C-alpha cells in the first residue's frame, strides 16, 4: 500500500520546512514558558488586562492559573494552530496538485504503481510531517516546563491537549489534501486549501471576541479543539476530539477516491 521510494522522497522534501518550524516553535515555547510566574501573575496576564479583546481573539485568555492552563492559552490558541496549518498548506499542495500542475505527475503514473498507493503514500507523508511537529512540540513543552518549573506541568493533560491539536491539524491537513486532489492547478489548490482553514480561524477569532458573536463558534471546526475543556477535564472533549479524527478520516478517504477517479490533464 505504501511506496517506500516515494515516501522517502516526500519526507526528504519535508525535512527543511519541519526544521524551520521546529526552530520557531523552540523559540516561542522557551520564551513563553519563562514568562510564567506562579505567584504574581505573568507579564502576559498584565497584557491581557490592558487589551482584553485582542488577547481573547487569539485565545490568549487563561481559564486557569496553572502552568498547564497558561501553556494552553498562550501556545495552543494561536501558535500551535497556525504553524502546523501553514505546514499542511505547503506540504499538501506540493504532494499532489503541484505535480499535476507542472506535469511531473506523469512519472508517478507511468509506473506500475496503483494510484491508490501513490495517494496513500502522499497522505502518509503529510500525516508524518504533522505528527513530527506535534510530537516535537509536546516533548519541547514538557522539557521547557520541567527545566523551569519542575513538577508544575500536568503532563497527562498536556499530552491530551497535544492529541487534540493533532486531531485538529489532521482535519486541516485533510482539507488541504482534498483540495490538492480536486484541483489541477496550484493556485486553486492553495486558494481552497489555505482559504477554508483561514476562514474558519477568522470565524473562531470573531466568536472569541465577544458575547454578541459567540454563536459564530458553531460555524467553525476550531471549536472542536476545546483547550479550556481539556484543561478542565470535561468529558465532552473526548467526543470533540473523536469527531476531529473521524472527520479527517473522511476527508482523506474522499481524497483517495477523488485522486483515483479523476482525469489527469498531464
Amino acid at each position, binding site marked *: 500500500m505504501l*511506496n517506500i*521510494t*516515494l515516501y522517502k*522522497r516526500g519526507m526528504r*522534501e519535508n525535512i527543511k520546512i519541519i526544521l524551520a518550524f521546529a526552530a520557531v516553535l523552540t523559540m516561542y515555547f522557551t520564551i513563553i514558558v519563562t514568562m510564567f510566574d506562579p505567584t504574581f501573575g505573568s507579564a502576559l496576564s498584565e497584557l491581557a488586562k490592558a487589551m482584553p479583546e485582542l488577547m481573547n481573539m487569539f485565545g490568549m485568555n487563561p481559564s486557569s492559573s496553572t502552568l498547564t492552563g497558561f501553556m494552553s492559552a498562550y501556545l495552543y490558541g494561536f501558535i500551535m494552530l497556525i504553524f502546523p496549518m501553514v505546514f499542511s498548506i505547503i506540504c499538501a499542495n506540493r504532494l499532489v496538485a503541484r505535480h499535476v500542475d*507542472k*506535469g*511531473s505527475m*506523469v*512519472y*508517478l*503514473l*507511468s*509506473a*506500475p*504503481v*496503483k*494510484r491508490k498507493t501513490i495517494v496513500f503514500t502522499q497522505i502518509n507523508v503529510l500525516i508524518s510531517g504533522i505528527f513530527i511537529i506535534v510530537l516535537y512540540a509536546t516533548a519541547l513543552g514538557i522539557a521547557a516546563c520541567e527545566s523551569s518549573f519542575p513538577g508544575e506541568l500536568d503532563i497527562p493533560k498536556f499530552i491530551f491537549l497535544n492529541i487534540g491539536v493533532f486531531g485538529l491539524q489532521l482535519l486541516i491537513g485533510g482539507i488541504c489534501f482534498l483540495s490538492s486532489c480536486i484541483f489541477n492547478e496550484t493556485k486553486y489548490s492553495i486558494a481552497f486549501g489555505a482559504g477554508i482553514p483561514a476562514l474558519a480561524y477568522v470565524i473562531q477569532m470573531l466568536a472569541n471576541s465577544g458575547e454578541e458573536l459567540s454563536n459564530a463558534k458553531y460555524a467553525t471546526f476550531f471549536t472542536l479543539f476545546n483547550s479550556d475543556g481539556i484543561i478542565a477535564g470535561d468529558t465532552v472533549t473526548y467526543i470533540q476530539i473523536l469527531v476531529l479524527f473521524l472527520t479527517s478520516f473522511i476527508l482523506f478517504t474522499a481524497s483517495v477516491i477523488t485522486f483515483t*477517479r479523476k*482525469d*489527469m*490533464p*498531464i
Partner: protein
Amino acid sequence: MSVLTVNQLSRDYGNERGIFDLTFQVKEGEALGFLGPNGAGKTTTIRHLMGFLRPEKGSCSINGLDCWKHRATIQKDLGYIPGEISFFDDMTGKEFLNFYSSFRNLKTTSRINELIDRFDLNTRGKLKKMSKGMKQKVGIVAAFIHDPQVLILDEPTSGLDPLMQNRFIELILEEKQKGKTILMSSHMFEEVERTCHRVCIIKEGKLVAVDSVDSLKASQAKKFVITFENEEMAADFTTKWEESTYRSNQVTLIARQNINDMIALLSTYSISNITSPEQGLEEIFLQYYGGSEHA
C-alpha cells in the same frame, strides 16, 4: 494479434476540439506512426492509452487490458515518453533516474548506464537547469529503463539535435528488431518514414487515414526545383509538364509516381542544378489529401 487497440474512442472538449470516434490498432511487433498537426488530438489519444483520462465514449486497451481499469498493471511493460517533459526539478538527472527506477521497483541499473552512454547524457546537473534537449534525453532514458515490450512515444525527438535524433532512430530500429510494439506520434514525416511500418493520420480529432508507409510515400508528391541553362528551355519544359511553373531559368515542379518520366524528359535539356526542398508535414498532408481527392 493486435497489442494496442483504440476502439471508437471519443472525448469532446467543445469548440470541435478533442477526439471523435477514433479506431485503430497496433499489431504485435509493429511500429505505427501517429501523425497529425498540432492540436489534432494525438496527445489526448495517448493520455487515454496511458490511463490518465477516462474515455467519454469507446475504449482502449493494451495487451487485452482496459487502459483505464488496469492502468497500473499495463505500465509494467510499457515505456512512455511524454509530449511535455517535466521532472522533479530539484533532482539531478542521475538522482531522478535512480528514483524512478526504484519507484518502479527495478532491481538493476545496468540499463540506465548503457542508455546514458548512448545519448551522451551528463546526469550530474540539476534537472531544473537542463536545456530542453537534455531533459528530452533524460525522458528517453526513463522510458527505456525497464526494457518494455510496448512503447508509446509522444513526439520523442523534439528538442534533440540532428545527431541525437539519429541515435534515437537507431535505438527505435533496434527495438523494432527485438519485436517491440511501438506507437510513435510525430509531426515529422521523415522520422516516421524511417522507423514505422504503418502510419495513422489524424486531423481535428478524426481519423483521416491509416496506411502503410510505402503507399503513403507512393502517393506523396515530391517537389523539385530545377535550374535550366536558360529561360527558353525552362518555358519550353513547363509546356510539357503539367504541374510546373517557371521563373526566369528556374522551374518548380511536382512529381508523383512519374519520376522516371520526369528524368527522361529532363535528359533532353541542358540542366545546371536539381534540388528537392525538404517538405513539412503540412505540405505532405495537403498533397496526400489532395491526392485522395483526385482518386
